[in-house]
């Protein structure tokens, strides 16, 4: 029996939706934040995300274990990251154009190999019920949290701490702020960027596996609607801080959950416009936070995207 909680259902559904929808954003944006802090942009994460979703689902189905699927997605994501990083090492390669190429390539490969896995059902990643204290089913539904959400928040905190306090973090930041300074310190800039891009790719792969293995929880060719690219915009808004990326992801998740939440209480007017809310929000924030006159605060100095 559902308890009637009237319009309270909307904010609850948005909260629950924000947690569900934001998780892939957290992984992709924290990964991209690491990549961009090292001075490189990977726009191809959209393709990595889609391939992660496909490979995670396929491997989970074959091995009957969602966790092995997740690992596989991270592994293939890393391969995509390494590929991007390796080509960008060559002189005169435009990392933005290469990202677009990899977006097409990654999605193409995912659709190619994913065709046989559209029908079968793979095991899902487990969720934890944090709503045990409430009798209201809507509250319980909203607080059924996937383990990856918790892992993502922990990852964002750890990545922020790592960038600020460890030698690896400092190395990444120096490589991103001034390649010359890094070289003077004896840092191999290309290697730092290669592995930062690889880490970003692995995290994007995990984000993709979350899509296919938990929410929405199946593999099809329309599984990603630009999350990988929105995550790149989100990193700019989050000022290249992994913790801010997590906050921004929750905000985006909430915007993405707006349409379904309103639909659940019977508002169907303008469904497609609500569907566009996350894109409009991203664009609005991008416009609000960009500037022609002042350099972006805390932007890595070597970044092609802010030059």
């Amino acid at each position, binding site marked *: 029996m559902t308890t009637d909680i009237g319009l309270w259902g909307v904010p609850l559904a948005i909260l629950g939706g924000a947690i569900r929808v934001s998780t892939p954003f957290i992984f992709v944006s924290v990964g991209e934040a690491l990549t961009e802090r090292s001075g490189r942009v990977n*726009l191809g994460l959209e*393709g990595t995300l889609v391939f992660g979703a496909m490979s995670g689902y396929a491997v989970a189905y074959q091995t009957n274990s969602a966790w092995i699927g997740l690992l596989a997605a991270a592994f293939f994501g890393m391969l995509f990251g390494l590929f991007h990083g390796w*080509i960008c090492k*060559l*002189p*005169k*390669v*435009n990392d*933005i*154009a*290469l990202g*677009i*190429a*990899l977006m*097409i*390539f*990654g*999605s*193409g*490969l*995912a*659709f*190619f190999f994913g*065709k046989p896995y559209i029908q079968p059902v793979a095991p899902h990643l487990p969720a934890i019920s944090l709503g045990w204290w409430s009798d209201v089913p809507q509250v319980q539904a909203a607080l059924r949290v996937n383990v990856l959400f918790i892992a993502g928040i922990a990852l964002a905190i750890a990545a922020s701490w790592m960038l600020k306090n460890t030698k690896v973090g400092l190395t990444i930041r120096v490589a991103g702020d001034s390649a010359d300074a890094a070289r003077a310190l004896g840092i191999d800039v290309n290697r730092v960027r290669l592995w930062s891009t690889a880490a970003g790719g692995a995290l994007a792969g995990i984000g993709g596996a979350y899509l296919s293995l938990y929410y929405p929880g199946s593999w099809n*060719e329309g599984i990603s*609607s*630009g999350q990988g*690219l*929105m995550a*790149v*915009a989100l990193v*700019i808004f989050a000022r290249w801080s992994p913790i801010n990326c997590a906050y921004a992801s929750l905000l985006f998740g909430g915007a993405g959950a707006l349409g379904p939440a309103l639909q659940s209480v019977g508002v169907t007017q*303008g*469904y*497609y*416009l609500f*569907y*566009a809310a996350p*894109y*409009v929000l*991203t*664009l609005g924030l*991008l*416009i609000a936070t*960009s*500037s*022609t006159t002042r350099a972006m605060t805390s932007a890595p100095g070597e970044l092609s*995207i*802010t030059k």
Partner: protein
Amino acid sequence: MTTEAGLAAPATGAINAETAETFARKLDAVLLPLAALLVGMSIFSIFLLFLGKSPIEFFQIVYKAGFGTAFSWTNTLARAAPLLLAALCVALPARLGLVIIGGEGAIVLGGVAAGAVAMLAPGLPGPIGIIFMAIAACVVGGAWIGGIGALRHLRGVNETISSLLMAYIAIALMNHLVEGPLRDPASLNKPSTAPLPDAWRIGEIPGVGVHWGLAVGIIGCIVCWLLIERTTWGFAARIVGGNVKAAQIQGLPAGLLMIGFTALGGAFAGLAGMFEVAAVHGSANASLAAGYGYTGILIAFLARHNGLAIIPAAIVFAGFEASSGLIQRRLDLPDATILVLEGIVFITILLSDARQDRVSIVKLMKGASA
């Protein structure tokens, strides 16, 4: 030794060497993308071999389905029409150094605008209706992409990301309009705008069997080439593309050029949508988002953003895409096969651009004379 030879050489010799170098540069511009295309196709062949499929059979089918018969040429050229216009939406801004990848949004909204005009004034005679549809599509597409250029100039918003976000917004807008305010109640299974009046439908070019969008696309490519290579505006745009700051110091209106070129590109993409509605589908619906905008990116990069080169590049990829159905049936490969090929070719093109200094005829020539 070299200086002596240089001094001693007659003036005509120097001019000859210069023309030879210009010629070599032009040859490079043609041969390098061609080589990139061939390398990409070879890597794709290896990919097919790994899967136990025959690359020879694959390319035979592509040839047969895309270019082998008069019928397949008609099919290919009909697909090339929107691709030509979509590629211009990437190539024009690219000459100013802007990477716009959201042409799909302008195509979709241009198509919806055309469908909306037909619903507002279906009583108008055919030719006037077509002109109104074209104007509406150009204005909407131009404003959509021009807005991205303006945001870039006025607010420093990264145009690559904003254009793609706007493409998603455009598709959502189209779905909203086509399923809501503009929906024809008679369209049950596939929500669409009302069918265009018969007189408004755009026919075929006599003797070619392909709709007029192809002619407009080719003319658009030639006009853009002339604009960029032969006019002061184009020259100014290329300077801005080379170095914005230097261009501004020279007093060039970088902002106006950015907005103008993006708007022009958007207008072409909008026209592509209009032709899809008026010549192919007969009404605006979700079929507009067919991915032409994304293939257009690849074509523009393959053509190195040169209007004339876009024509053959678009025809090649239109042929690839036209053969997709036959490849699925004959080789039992998924429809994404062409997408994989496109991704590989895109990567090899970017690599060839980066390696130009290493492998080029200009370099060979200089190496020989040194």
